[in-house]
């Protein structure tokens, strides 16, 4: 595949999958700048190895794996940038109007608690509950055992339940 064809093929893939991948990036990070950076880096790596990625693996699985691994890396916090890109590729809309004030407050609390989870636990709950992946699929992406996925899930849920129960009514 020559460069032009490779570029066109990659562009076609990204345009078809960008919303889904962008949403995953945002759930993993909870922040627009961080999500943009994570997503672009993952796709840049994907593009670098596009010939192999498209022929051997499911591109989605490859990109998901890169995003999760990078997000889980301690390096993300060490190298965190404080500056935003000049223009954005993602837009985060305001939350919809609350059905009830109590529901809204609870939802915000839960979202906050998700963001305090350790990176690995957060990745597990996002992959399991948003991406609807099985424990085995989640383990494959994280490069760990199914048992580890189970324990991360259980710890994450327990931590959030505890925090929600501690939250003032």
């Amino acid at each position, binding site marked *: 595949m020559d*460069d032009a064809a490779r570029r066109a093929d*990659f*562009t076609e893939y*990204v*345009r078809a999958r*960008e*919303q889904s991948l*962008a*949403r*995953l990036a*945002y*759930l993993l990070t909870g922040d627009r700048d961080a*999500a943009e*950076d*994570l997503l*672009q*880096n993952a*796709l*840049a*790596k*994907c*593009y*670098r190895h596009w010939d192999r990625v498209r022929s051997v693996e499911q591109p989605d699985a490859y990109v998901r794996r890169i995003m999760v*691994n*990078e997000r889980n*890396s*301690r*390096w*993300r*916090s*060490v*190298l*965190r*940038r*404080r*500056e935003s*890109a*000049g*223009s*954005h*590729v*993602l*837009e*985060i*809309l*305001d*939350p*919809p109007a609350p059905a009830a004030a109590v529901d809204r407050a*609870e*939802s915000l609390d*839960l*979202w906050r608690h*998700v963001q305090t989870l350790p990176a690995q636990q957060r990745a597990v709950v*996002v992959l399991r*509950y*948003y991406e609807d992946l099985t424990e085995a699929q989640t383990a494959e992406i994280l490069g760990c055992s199914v048992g580890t996925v189970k324990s991360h899930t259980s710890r994450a*849920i327990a931590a*959030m*339940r505890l925090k*929600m129960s501690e939250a003032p009514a």
Partner: protein
Amino acid sequence: MNTTDPRLKDLFDEHSGRVHVVGDLAERAIARDRANRRREVTTAVAVGALALAVAVPIGWNSLRPVTHQVPAGTSTAPTPAPSTQTGATATNPTPSTSSGSASDSATPTAIPTIIASGDPAPVQLTPATGSVTGQTNAGYVVDGVFHEGDRTIPLPDELRRSGHVLRVGDGLLAFKPADGRSYVLVDSSGAIVKEIPAGGVRVAPDRQHFLISTLGGDLAYYDATGTKLGQLDASTCECTTDGAGGGYIPAGLVGTTAYGVAMDGRTTVAWDVTTDQLERIKGSVSLVGPAGTGLVTWPGRTPQKLEDWCQELRDLGTGATLWRLCGPILLTSFSEDGTHLVGTGVIDGLPDALLDDGKFRYPSLVVLDASTGEIVAEGGSRDPAVGGSFVTAHLGEGGVLTAQVNGTDGLRSLQVCSLDGSCAVAGEAKPLWTADIPEGNDPYVLTTN
């Protein structure tokens, strides 16, 4: 089943539904890949088999795992002894066996070993602020024009944003960013002489010859006019990497001896370009100094302590190890006169064991005395997100350091510093070429030779 499960699903659905792509993500990813390639060509050879990268001061860099385990030869583990005079803990010379030439029998030697534990260096370089008050004779490109003292060379449009420039003869060898797979030789007027497909380049100290790795992993030896004088086939490395085939990464060129690291990082070949005679050196020679010394790296796969992650300087002629430095410093170049080594402590991909509670132990610039391995100066922040980081640096003769510094405002200036700690602005602060991609795209491109 607990009540948190459905709430989590609803929560994720709600928040993910707020996210919309409003820009050209594919185009941005392709541009970032291009920027990454530009940055990698300036560090790939230096990091060699380490498969690590200098972390970008204001960007989130990609995580690259250590992919090669370079054997530590037959050396014994160093025994730390307290001494903090040089910004690191020096050990007493430790009985060890050197791992010089692969064909050599192991010979007991005493190797002075320094444990770089994070102690501050004796001299701190502090970037200057304000207007231009300094001058540099180092070679660099800014706004598409190469500068070296009073001399300038306008670069062709396709090389204006090269990202990697080397001095060859009276001209330059510049990475071609459009394809990422070749270098272009230009003469002293800026006219293109030749385009050479290459993965990496090293230039001899006298700049009259250069060494490249072809895209197939061969080493090729050229003179300054772009005439190929010799070639070493990739198959001679007797190495393969993850099904990608074998070959070499050019490490250096001293006289008529060319050094190339085998792709598997286990050995380095010394190729006599006049006789085609080959000699194997154990380990990965990441840098070669003008006097024929070479920096050999042998990181462990999962180092659990500083002492497991070491580099050593060897006399490549005799195989003797002059000193060993263990700790989280990535050395990226020799000074022009070979008296010092320049590196950084801000390294992407370090294992936790080499971090200090999640933080780097050394800042963005570290300077070592090449004769002893002692850390003599450092500069910039240990936090790459903070302004004042040294992004790239070139140490000329007489200890004059020219560096590109990332300011608190995100702009990058050229600075000239002496190793006594004083710095002056030598080039006004400028923005990155592509503001949308925080990594790379430096406005000042210092030559790497």
